[in-house]
């Protein structure tokens, strides 16, 4: 497991001070900083419309930010050379497969672009996931198109895998199978993975780290285990809680005012501090609701 978290290596992707606005919607990313280290599996959490897809497209160099820098494998994301490009796998939210092609034609076409291509993996997944090789892609179901898109993204054994809602059309069995494939990538290749989904149970299994996108920034990134152990919900008067937090060294993450000078506060305790008994433990769904 020594391939995980080698902090000295170049980040797989690094965004610094990235801002991006759409003419109609206004600012989406606001001076956002974010780092993906080699071997990390990061779950990207954010509400609908919070800009997850925009962020992932910007990370891949598909959108040019108004300000800031985006680097992938140490190179400017907008001007990646072919070698760096070949190390990226991407499953977009909207299928971008050529609908007139058959899966066999599509894969043969992509194969010609990559120096590396794992034919055995492709064949194995095509059979296991039961995808008709010679039927036009437009005639495949949504789930099958999504599977094909995943196979295409894994075929060239990428070092960075970017998955934007990759399992939305898959049934629970298909999702579990996909997660196993992801775990295998991590085990065999130490692939860096960033994964956006609203299916929190999937993230909980495979994403060791979570990043919360809120108001155009990564508001928090931390290992899920640490968040579950260190984040608690407290209820009390504003003054009570202020003195409790200063005594514990707790960092407030989200305040919700209640009646009569009281509030509910989600706060992160320093590692190793004894958790007060009346503090409420939270699960991933609570974290999502409060921090995005």
């Amino acid at each position, binding site marked *: 497991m020594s391939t995980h978290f080698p902090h000295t290596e170049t980040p797989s992707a690094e965004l610094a001070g990235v801002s991006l606005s759409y003419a109609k919607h206004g600012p989406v990313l606001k001076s956002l900083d974010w780092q993906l280290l080699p071997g990390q599996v990061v779950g990207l959490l954010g509400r609908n419309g919070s800009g997850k897809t925009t962020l992932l497209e910007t990370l891949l160099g598909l959108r040019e930010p108004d300000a800031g820098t985006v680097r992938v494998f140490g190179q400017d994301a907008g001007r990646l050379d072919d070698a760096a490009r070949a190390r990226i796998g991407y499953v977009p939210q909207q299928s971008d497969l050529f609908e007139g092609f058959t899966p066999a034609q599509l894969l043969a076409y992509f194969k010609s672009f990559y120096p590396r291509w794992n034919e055995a993996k492709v064949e194995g997944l095509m059979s296991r996931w039961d995808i008709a090789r010679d039927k036009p892609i437009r005639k495949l179901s949504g789930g099958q198109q999504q599977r094909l898109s995943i196979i295409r993204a894994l075929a060239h054994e990428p070092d960075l895998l970017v998955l934007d809602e990759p399992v939305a059309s898959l049934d629970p069995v298909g999702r579990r199978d996909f997660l196993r494939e992801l775990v295998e990538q991590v085990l065999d290749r130490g692939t860096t993975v960033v994964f956006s989904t609203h299916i929190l149970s999937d993230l909980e299994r495979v994403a*060791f780290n979570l990043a919360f996108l809120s108001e155009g920034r990564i508001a928090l990134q931390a290992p899920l285990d640490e968040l579950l152990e260190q984040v608690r919900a407290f209820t009390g008067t504003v003054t009570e809680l202020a003195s409790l937090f200063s005594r514990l060294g707790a960092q407030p993450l989200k305040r919700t005012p209640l009646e009569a000078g009281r509030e509910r506060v989600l706060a992160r305790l320093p590692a190793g501090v004894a958790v007060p008994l009346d503090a409420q433990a939270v699960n991933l769904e609570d974290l999502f609701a409060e921090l995005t």
Partner: protein
Amino acid sequence: MDPTHFVHINTGSPEPIYRQLIEQVKRRVAAGQLRAGDEIPSVRELAQALAVHPMTISKAYSMLEMEGVLERRRGLSMVVAAQHQKAQPTADRVELLRPTLEKAAAESRQLELPKASALQLFKTILDEQAS
């Protein structure tokens, strides 16, 4: 050992997955279902069976090793540590229930339940599972 039935995990719980793994292995060792020398699934096998990040599994195994529940044999496989020859005495096993019951007791007090009612419910639940 079949990795798919070695442990079960619950997603959506405030208890991290690695904690769930640790507690389940401890309970099975305490009950004598897992004994000294029994080989447990490798990190790879269990990560794939549960579709869980391998670091989560290796974190749980390392902590179980530090606590003397598991030991690393030559090569890579982990086994149940030598001191766990048989099930622990009832008095020790019942202590493993304490954290769960403390939580239940706190909730029972919040609900202002009479002690007898809470105990009766626990008894009923125990009987249901047994039958």
